């Protein structure tokens, strides 16, 4: 099954909510919409579902134009960030509700509901009402409702965002297993790059109503096509620096003085001389250890130590930078520290934000 957006756009009251978007989502594996709050993930999902009608472009499903068809007549299921269940109905009736609307036979409804409840560990709760359940169980009920329907398109809109850490881990592992067997096109919205990487599949990065990049999740992470995609797909935020390229050499410069200098990689040395933006993920910025990598000095602003890693925020050439290193590294806030840059892993972006060599 395939869901295709062809130049789909949405304008509300003269304001562009979604810029013309082309996207082709296949069944098998999750299709992840990654972006910050208000990037347009939910709106894009509404357009896919038919909850909202695009002001331009078409939505195609299985080779059929479904643009004008209301969500009632499409076979869609959705799980929201808030736990949405019918408050006065039991868990059983909640899960059964889409089947009852579809006028399915009583015995079949019973069998399907029990199967879904079993998968989501809700069997003992079937007789309770949603307000008698924990948050995790409420969301499981909503997921079960999406599951029984055998929908062609399943939309999961930050379904784990309101759950605590443990439940999130648990459900994140279960979700792909639950929905992949169903053969639906599954779309999953999240604000967290790490969640996208954990779920794999394909990822589309969104920024201010625009899809900036789309591809297999790992590939998009390793080789983002442009600066915005790299920024959306990095947590902690990707480090940016203005670099001067002259011939085969690259220099990170501030006020004409080079802070660090290194050999340009193949892709960049073929490009024209001039100013580029370098993007370097925080885990490629390490405390200096004399390994021969280009080193820079910066004043440490904030440090965060977790059990296994150290994060240091520092200032470099007037920009906020972040270093993320394994182990415990004692940084003194307010003092300067030396950091080594794994420049071989850096991305270079031209004036238009395109990645050089992409």
């Amino acid at each position: 099954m395939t869901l295709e957006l062809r130049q789909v756009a949405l304008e509300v009251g003269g304001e562009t909510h979604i810029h013309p978007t082309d996207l082709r989502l296949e069944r098998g594996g999750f299709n992840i919409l990654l972006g910050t709050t208000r990037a347009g993930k939910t709106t894009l999902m509404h357009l896919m579902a038919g909850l909202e009608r695009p002001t331009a472009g078409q939505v195609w499903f299985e080779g059929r134009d479904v643009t004008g068809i209301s969500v009632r007549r499409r076979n869609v299921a959705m799980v929201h960030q808030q736990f949405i269940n019918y408050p006065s109905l039991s868990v059983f009736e909640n899960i059964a509700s889409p089947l009852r609307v579809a006028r399915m036979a009583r015995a079949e409804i019973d069998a399907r509901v029990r199967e879904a409840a079993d998968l989501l560990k809700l069997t003992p709760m079937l007789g309770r009402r949603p307000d008698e359940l924990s948050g995790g169980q409420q969301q499981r009920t909503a997921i079960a409702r999406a599951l029984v329907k055998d929908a062609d398109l399943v939309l999961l809109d930050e379904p784990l965002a309101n759950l605590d850490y443990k439940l999130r881990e648990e459900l994140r592992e279960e979700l792909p297993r639950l929905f992949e067997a169903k053969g639906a096109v599954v779309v999953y919205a999240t604000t967290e790059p790490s969640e996208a990487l954990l779920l794999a599949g394909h990822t589309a990065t969104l920024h201010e109503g625009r899809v900036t990049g789309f591809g297999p999740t790992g590939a998009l992470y390793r080789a983002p096509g442009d600066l915005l995609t790299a920024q959306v797909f990095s947590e902690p935020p990707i480090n940016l620096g203005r670099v001067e390229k002259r011939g085969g050499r690259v220099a990170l410069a501030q006020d004409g003085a080079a802070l660090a200098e290194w050999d340009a990689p193949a892709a960049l040395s073929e490009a024209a001389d001039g100013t580029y933006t370098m993007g370097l993920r925080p885990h490629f910025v390490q405390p200096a250890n004399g390994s021969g990598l280009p080193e820079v000095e910066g004043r440490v602003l904030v440090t965060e130590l977790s059990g296994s890693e150290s994060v240091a925020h520092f200032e470099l050439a007037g920009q906020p930078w972040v270093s993320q290193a394994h182990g415990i590294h004692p940084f003194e806030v307010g003092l300067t520290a030396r950091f080594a840059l794994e420049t071989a892993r850096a991305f270079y972006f031209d004036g238009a934000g395109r990645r050089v060599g992409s």
Partner: protein
Amino acid sequence: MRRTNQIGWLFVAPVLLLVAFNALIPLMTVVNYSVQESFGDNVFFWSGLQWFEQLLNEDRFHAALGRQLMFTGIILAIELPLGVAIALCMPKKGPFVPVCLVLMALPLLIPWNVVGAMWNILALPEIGLLGYGLNAAGIDFNFTQSPVDAWITIVAMDVWHWTSLVVLLAFAGLSAIPDAYYQAARIDGASRWSVFRHIELPKMKRVLTIAVLLRFMDSFMIYTEISVLTGGGPGNATTLLSIDLVKKALGQFDLGPAAAMSLVYFLITLLVSWLFYTLMTRGEQ
């Protein structure tokens, strides 16, 4: 072992004192009157439960209580569904929301005696817009002579005055429902009726409980509007409990029986409110 912290009493003492002065002491005065026979010159005799016995066996009290229950029943049956229906029809977003809310709130801002006077003038058959209009249209309408017409007028007045309160409460309940519920219902293919039955109604339950309680208590104690509009007439047709009580206490100056009636009236109001509350919040933690 449970330790009780005695200093807590010190902190609630001012409130207790205030409640004592404005609720308990007046109430106890009423209790005092209700067990005594009074004469002029401040002469009182102990009469025990005589006034209570007399009251509970009195046809006049039964009739007033019956009229009161009928009035409250009728206006609850009209105002609640009507209020919810209006709230459902109101726009949820946009510039017309404040306009609608202000229009709805207007009747609530009018003093009760003014409402009574307005409807009195409005319904007068000789000069009132409504009364004259109805008669001109060939409908025989005179609330000062026909008990049925009087009842129609007081019910219409109360519905006009207080439905807004239900509308505002129901609207507040509706506005608190996240859009995602409606989207989920659309995705399920649920009908308008199921959206109302399974989403809107349960989500409004709490505010509607408040609405029922407020409307019950207010209508059960209604005095000013009806006193101004019909004065309890024609005859005793619209003499509800409070009007009967005032006739007894101030008209006849029967302090003992009036005090006994006040207490019974108060207990009925309390009991029915408690019943409503218990029934409507049943099954909640």
